[in-house]
């Protein structure tokens, strides 16, 4: 009995190569890092602080920008207007431009001699080299992921349900919060997680806006440049572990929430 055709074997072979390509470097890195090094690294204040900084700035950037991004995604899913394709193009820009170039653009936007910089200055803030500057860089790079996921989510909510809610006497605000948002929630959460993840892993734009305080991707780069592969590796491994734990937790939490809804 032949269970696999030649074609299927061919597909499995190629697919396997790709999986290996993704997994092998990561597994290799884990294997080459001794638990002792890992524990040492976890005790290193610089590392721990940078991981906290990275997680918290990315988290805040995601939540704050989501407040405006989710309504925008709704607008884009529901309304047709002149120049909509242009707006959609703008939204995808951060994905296609080089991140170091994005960093230069943001630096030019928030540095002290700009309007934004001057306003911040009046509150005694220098955005360059400040977590706010880091958050701005993270959000700039990662917001397309949230916008696109949320837009898909809203598009999938039948317009009829919103019409029915209006007919039942609900205001547009109530319809948005009680019908559209809960039904698109699964996609929005995916978008939030993606945005958070993408912000956390950003290096190119952040390194230009703020070398200090050091987010973990910058710290890994710095350790690699100053001390070499052996010193950079445990930080990388630790950061990956922390990220994975966070994603699994977020996925589980969001799953519970959506299950309760369905």
């Amino acid at each position, binding site marked *: 009995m032949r269970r696999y055709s030649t074609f299927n074997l061919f597909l499995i072979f190629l697919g396997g190569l790709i999986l290996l390509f993704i997994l092998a470097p990561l597994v290799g890195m884990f294997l080459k890092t001794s638990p002792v090094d890992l524990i040492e690294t976890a005790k290193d204040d610089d590392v721990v602080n940078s991981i906290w900084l990275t997680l918290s700035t990315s988290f805040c950037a995601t939540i704050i920008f989501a407040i405006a991004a989710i309504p925008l995604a709704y607008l884009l899913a529901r309304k047709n207007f002149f120049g909509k394709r242009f707006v959609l193009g703008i939204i995808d820009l951060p994905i296609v431009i080089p991140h170091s170039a994005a960093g230069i653009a943001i630096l030019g936007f928030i540095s002290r001699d700009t309007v934004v910089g001057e306003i911040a200055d009046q509150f005694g803030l220098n955005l360059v080299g400040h977590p706010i500057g880091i958050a701005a860089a993270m959000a700039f790079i990662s917001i397309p992921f949230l916008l696109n996921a949320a837009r898909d989510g809203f598009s999938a909510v*039948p317009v*009829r*349900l919103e*019409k*029915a*809610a*209006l*007919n*039942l*006497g*609900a*205001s547009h605000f109530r319809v948005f919060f*009680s*019908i559209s948002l*809960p*039904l698109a929630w699964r996609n929005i959460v995916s978008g939030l997680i993606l945005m958070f993840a993408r912000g956390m892993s950003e290096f190119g734009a952040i390194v230009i806006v703020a070398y200090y305080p050091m987010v973990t991707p910058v710290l890994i780069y710095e350790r690699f440049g100053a001390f070499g592969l052996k010193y950079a590796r445990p930080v990388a491994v630790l950061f990956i572990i922390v990220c994975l734990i966070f994603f699994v937790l977020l996925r589980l939490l969001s799953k519970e929430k959506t299950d309760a*809804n*369905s």
Partner: protein
Amino acid sequence: MLTVNNISKKYKDFVLDDISFSVNNEDYFVILGQSGAGKTILLEIIAGLIKQDKGKILFNNKDISFEKIQKRNFGLVFQDFAIFPHLSVKENILYALKSKKLDKISTKEKIQELAKVVNISHLLHRNTTTLSGGELQRVALARTLALEPDILLLDEPLSSLDIILKDELRALLRKLNKNGQTIIHVTHDYIEAVTLANKVAVLHNGKLLQIGTPKDVFQNPESKFVANFIGIKNFFKTKITNKNKAVINNNIEISLVSDNTETEGCLLIRSEDILISDKQLEASAMNNFYGEIIDVYPIESNYELIIDIGVKLSAFITETSINKFKLQAGKKVWICFKASAVKFIKT
């Protein structure tokens, strides 16, 4: 009273053209039309979900053409029910009650009362994603009735139900109407119009072709389309007296095949099923009547006879038979049809 005056709407490549009609309070108004005739758009314009390009809508003499959806108080039941999938049955009904701002106890009582009316008390705590089509339909109806709408707008409410559920829902709609609920019901099925409506409008390609009582529209179609579209001319309010017997017009007894007894309803006989003869036929057909031809006129490639047997019956007949039996107005003939050709619909 709802008055729709010269409503026009261009929607993509569809045009709703100069629609005018009025619906009195406690009317059961059926808008009959094929799919794509513009029925749903018309309902949504009345509900305020779509804005008309031209024309006015008046309710009790007040212009509501540009009134907000939420303020119109017309409850629309969508063809696919539009039940909120993330809410339970009870929460779906509660959604409509929120805008009523009732206190907790009245809300609870109201939900129980509505659930009882549409017979879903046992479903209140169920998740809506596991309900059948008929159950969803009832939830949608309860949710809309919670608004206590001035007019209930129904978009093809019976089309997705099987025959038994259709009968049940038809009876429920009838009951609601009898209790004073004004209903506008759009459908493609003329039987729904015959059995439920006290006023019918025929909509075709965005135009209203005819409005009137079911008798007016079905027995005197003003256009060829209406004549072809409405499938039946012989329909009568009836009561089944005992098994397999029904009485129409208080004095004419019709034999039929039915398990119902002591039931009111509507009786339908297709014009094609009626036979004409000079003498009474010795045949198995149970229904034999003697009557006078009132009118003969051509339709399509055949002729239609109107025969008075105490009530007026329409029969289709070929030109050959017209000539053979020398059928003309004033002539007396025998007609017969089988008991199994008589259709009874409970209302």
